């Protein structure tokens, strides 16, 4: 059929999926993820703003350690920081062409994420045992809201890492640079999740 030729002739390939555009110095995915992170900054910023408001207008508000488990949360903080290191090491190894080590570090990141959620699970369970629910008071409402939403973001990242360890890893063999870029992009997302926790942890637990 003659129209096959026309279809082939069309410039369908989207430019700058892997290579940088000269004037911006970016490839599409990197710009996209930073824009997404900007919107996430607005999201968590709104939540922090609400927390500050509710706390300053409350006559009574407990100190974080009075109600929450600081040692456990400190462990969680270190777990996330370690996971940030592993994901950036994954990316570095992929750039060195070392797929096996790269995958290892991606798996390590996934394991850290899992550890974080398990510890969080213990924390929540303990709260429920003490009959501390979101409805108890605004301290717990904000605690559950902020850590819950953050936890959902952790799970989201874990799903993506799992994908890249399994089906997604095929792309390494098809288009090495593109796969490496994708790990860079999910790494940026993951660092942001760590960054949110870096602010969340002291705000909820230490103040």
């Amino acid at each position, binding site marked *: 059929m003659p129209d096959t030729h026309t279809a082939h002739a069309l410039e369908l390939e989207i430019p700058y999926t892997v290579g940088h555009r000269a004037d911006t110095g970016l490839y599409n995915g990197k710009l996209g993820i930073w824009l997404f992170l900007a919107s996430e900054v607005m999201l968590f910023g709104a939540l922090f703003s609400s927390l*500050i408001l509710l706390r300053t*207008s409350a006559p009574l508000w407990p100190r974080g350690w009075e109600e929450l488990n600081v040692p456990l949360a400190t462990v969680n903080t270190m777990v996330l920081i370690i996971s940030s290191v592993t994901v950036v090491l994954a990316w570095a190894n992929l750039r060195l062409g070392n797929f096996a080590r790269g995958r290892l570090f991606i798996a390590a990141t996934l394991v850290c994420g899992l550890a974080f959620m398990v510890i969080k699970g213990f924390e929540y369970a303990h709260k429920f045992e003490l009959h501390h629910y979101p409805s108890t008071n605004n301290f717990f409402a904000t605690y559950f809201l902020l850590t819950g939403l953050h936890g959902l973001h952790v799970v989201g990242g874990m799903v993506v890492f799992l994908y890249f360890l399994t089906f997604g890893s095929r792309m390494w063999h098809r288009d090495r640079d593109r796969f490496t870029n994708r790990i860079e992009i999910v790494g940026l997302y993951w660092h*942001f999740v760590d960054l949110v926790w870096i602010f969340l942890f002291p*705000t909820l637990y230490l103040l």
Partner: protein
Amino acid sequence: MAEQIAVQAHHSPEEIQKEIRVYIAVFCGLAVLTGATVGACYGLKLPVHYAVMVAVTIAIMKGFLVAGFFMHLLSEKKVIYGILALTVFFVAVLLWGPLEHFLNRMGGGIR
């Protein structure tokens, strides 16, 4: 078709190894700062006002390390800086607005 520049071309293995050393150093810094903030606020049981100042300062330092080195923000392009600057400004506005409203209500202060 378009002028695509190979992404990995301008980083040699030596440069990447150097970056890895930086990552490890940053990790050590983050660990120390975490210890410091927990020690100050929880270990020493600082009163709220001081706790806020210490915790926010340390959090900003940790954030700077993660964003600057792990996210490579220190060597990022202008476009990204512009987007983030705009975002930070709007978050500041969003933090200010409701707080100003509630602190200075007609009829006086927080109710």
